[in-house]
């Protein structure tokens, strides 16, 4: 059947049903109470056309509070609306009411389903005085919260507690179709969260009785809108502040790190202990402060090194020293400030000749004593060595001394001395760099001269000494030269170059050829007239000395300095090392001047 539904506003709604249209009898459409004190009922006449006038239908009601109740007529009619109004006197709560329609001829239209209790038909009025306030806007300015407040409906008696009302808010965007509903709650205000700025919202509220399902009508809508606040400036400011703040903090951290860098590095990367060489300050070596290093090594002065060092390192057996000025130490004399390092290196007597004695030899296991017991006269050696030195006024005495001491007047010596004396001034003017050809066991270094005269003289000596020394035959053929230790400025600087020795091949040795031509390698100044024998800076070595000379290579590494301040060079392996060329493993050379660490290693090896 098709059911017609007519509501209070007169809106006609058709519900779908079958095609059959059956006449509908008069019936009640709705009964409603607004305040739980009164109620109304509306009826519809139906499709019966018999009833021409609306007054023909009459409403009767029955209150079932007692078994003897009877039907009574509607206390108040409103025929215009087809409404029956029950006032407070006629309204009883919690009592079932039944209504019926009666037409003419006492035809009653009654439906059992139309019975009700008033509390079940309550639909409260909507709230009044709706308004909204802005609670808070989000920092981005895009969304905001709104507090909506209202007043309870005036018809509902809430103050006496007779009615307990709950409210339901619904909102939607202006042009939206669906409503968003919030939870029903009994308070007269509620917050709507998360509304978007710039959008207009429509809000309305409806009420219902607590504990009962029926809602009342919606209230009039209110419109909520918050204009979008452009917060660009504040955002930019915020970002600027943040950036500068972060930069400031970073700078502060950097400053702290830099100021406490050392401490931080110590904490983060603790230094690894590195090996140190005693007596050698690596810092001085690195910085190249040769004078200071030399000063330190020399013990603050010339000749003081042995005492200083020997006292310092007496407990260190592995420490080897090049005893530069042993004689002075033994003799207990003061160091001669003026004597050069080269003199000391060569073992030349400086002041006290008395120190030149066998007793002055260091009592070590070097075996050098044997060397000195041999034919080699140390005095000659020293004489020769001294003669090789660049001219110094004090050397005259030194030169003269051995002359006095040596009773044996070899013809060779005097010319030697003479040549020495002659050669002294020439020596001064001569080239500072020369090639070392051989090193004497006593410590003298032989330089290769450039004069044939010397060669001839030498060869005579060699032939004489050949018979005496058998084992040194190999050495005799070798032109012997003494080492020229050049100390131009007296600073003690001795270059490696000057310590080189020209290696003369044994095959080239010919008795006739006493001397070889010198090939100075890193030559700064060449001798002006090497042809002149008198001006030759080179001195012919003595024959007794020559035989003891071991043939050495042209270039050798300075092994060490012996007690007589002579450089001991590495001998070539092909030649048998002379017995008097001892190795002093126990003594480590102490550099007079600047020595590179690798050279130092070579020296000490």
């Amino acid at each position, binding site marked *: 059947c098709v059911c017609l539904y007519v509501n209070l506003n007169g809106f006609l709604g058709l519900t779908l049903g079958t095609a059959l249209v059956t006449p509908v009898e008069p019936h009640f459409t709705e009964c409603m109470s607004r305040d*739980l004190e009164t109620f109304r009922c509306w009826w519809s006449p139906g499709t019966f056309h018999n009833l021409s006038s609306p007054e023909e239908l009459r409403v009767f009601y029955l209150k079932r509070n007692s078994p003897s109740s009877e039907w009574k007529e509607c206390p108040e009619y409103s025929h215009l609306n087809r409404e029956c109004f029950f006032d407070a006197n006629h309204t009883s709560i919690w009592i*079932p009411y039944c209504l019926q329609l009666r037409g003419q001829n006492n035809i009653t239209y009654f439906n059992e*389903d139309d019975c009700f*209790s008033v509390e079940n038909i309550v639909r409260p009025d909507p709230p009044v005085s709706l308004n909204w306030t802005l609670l808070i806007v989000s920092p981005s300015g895009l969304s905001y919260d709104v507090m909506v407040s209202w007043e309870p409906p005036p018809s509902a008696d809430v*103050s006496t*507690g*007779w009615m307990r009302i709950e409210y339901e808010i619904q909102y939607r965007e202006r042009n939206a179709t669906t409503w968003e509903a919030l939870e029903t709650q009994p308070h007269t205000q509620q917050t709507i969260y998360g509304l978007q700025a710039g959008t207009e919202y429509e809000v309305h509220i409806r009420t219902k009785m607590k504990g009962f399902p029926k809602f009342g009508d919606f209230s009039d809508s209110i419109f909520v809108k918050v204009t979008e606040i452009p917060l660009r400036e504040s955002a930019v400011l915020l970002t600027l502040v943040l950036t500068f703040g972060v930069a400031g903090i970073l700078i502060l951290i950097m400053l702290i790190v830099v100021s406490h860098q050392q401490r931080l590095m110590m904490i983060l990367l603790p230094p690894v202990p590195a090996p140190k060489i005693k007596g050698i300050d690596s810092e001085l070596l690195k910085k190249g402060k040769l004078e200071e290093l030399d000063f330190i090594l020399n013990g603050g002065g010339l000749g003081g090194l042995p005492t200083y060092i020997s006292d310092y390192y007496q407990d260190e057996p592995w420490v080897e020293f090049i005893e530069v000025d042993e004689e002075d130490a033994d003799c207990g004399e003061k160091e001669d400030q003026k004597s050069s390092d080269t003199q000391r290196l060569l073992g030349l007597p400086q002041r006290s000749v008395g120190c030149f004695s066998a007793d002055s030899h260091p009592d070590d296991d070097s075996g050098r004593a044997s060397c000195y017991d041999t034919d080699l006269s140390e005095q000659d050696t020293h004489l020769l060595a001294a003669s090789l030195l660049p001219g110094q006024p004090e050397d005259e005495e030194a030169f003269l001394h051995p002359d006095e001491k040596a009773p044996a007047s070899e013809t060779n010596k005097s010319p030697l001395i003479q040549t020495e004396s002659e050669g002294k001034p020439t020596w001064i003017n001569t080239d500072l760099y020369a090639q070392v050809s051989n090193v004497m066991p006593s410590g003298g270094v032989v330089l290769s001269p450039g004069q044939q005269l010397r060669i001839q003289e030498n060869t005579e000596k060699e032939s004489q000494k050949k018979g005496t020394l058998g084992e040194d035959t190999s050495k005799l053929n070798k032109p012997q030269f003494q080492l020229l230790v050049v100390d131009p400025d007296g600073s003690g600087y001795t270059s490696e170059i000057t310590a080189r020795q020209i290696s003369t091949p044994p095959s080239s040795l010919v008795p006739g050829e006493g001397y070889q031509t010198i090939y100075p390698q890193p030559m700064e100044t060449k001798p002006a007239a090497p042809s002149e024998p008198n001006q030759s800076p080179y001195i012919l070595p003595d024959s007794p000395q020559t035989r003891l000379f071991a043939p050495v290579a042209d270039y050798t590494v300075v092994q060490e300095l012996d007690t007589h301040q002579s450089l001991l060079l590495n001998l070539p392996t092909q030649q048998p090392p002379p017995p008097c060329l001892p190795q002093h493993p126990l003594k480590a050379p102490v550099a007079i001047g600047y020595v590179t660490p690798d050279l130092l290693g070579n020296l000490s090896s």
Partner: protein
Amino acid sequence: LPGLDPLSAVWVGIICLVFSSRLSTMKAASICPNDQTGCHLLPLANLFDRVIQHSARMHGISDDLHSEFELYFLPSKNQIGRVSRNCHTSTILTPNGKENAQRIAREELAEIILKLLVAWRDPLWHFHQSMSQHDEFTNFSSNKSLEMSDMVHELRKGVLKVVEKMQMLGIISNSVGDTGSPEALLTSDSAEWRFMKDYDLLYCFRRDSNKIQNYLKILKCRIVPKHGC
């Protein structure tokens, strides 16, 4: 005490005196030290609120159960159903309107509430029993009926407490007792409710729980109107 020397006994006595005095003052000193207007009624208002909340919950449960019954049996338009009998509590005279409820004396209103609560104690228990026996009802409904039955008990105790408080405060007279003979009430219509169907019971209880809720609210707003009415 044998081991107690006089000095310590004196100390103990002093301490006891202090404690007792404190206890007595504690009784007098409640939430309101200066006895402001209405301040001393705050605990009563809180009690009322609690009781009202309880009754609201009870009514909600009964409403749920009633709706469920209607789904199974009788869908009705106005939730009226077909009540074949009057409720067994209809003999209790209750105010049926707002004016009546406001005109009635407080003590009478309180008494009516208590009567209602007492009247429903046994029927609800039996209702629960019959509910659990029926298989067509879900466990949910069975739990609700049990809860409903328990709530009636609790609510009665709560209302008694409120009445006691009111009597203590002198708001109502001491005429409202524990309705010393609830059995007397039940004897008159003790058999009536047994003949009621389960559905009718639910309908009646739903109505009566609403009555109780309303009466309690009215009573509160009459006695302590400033605390949330």
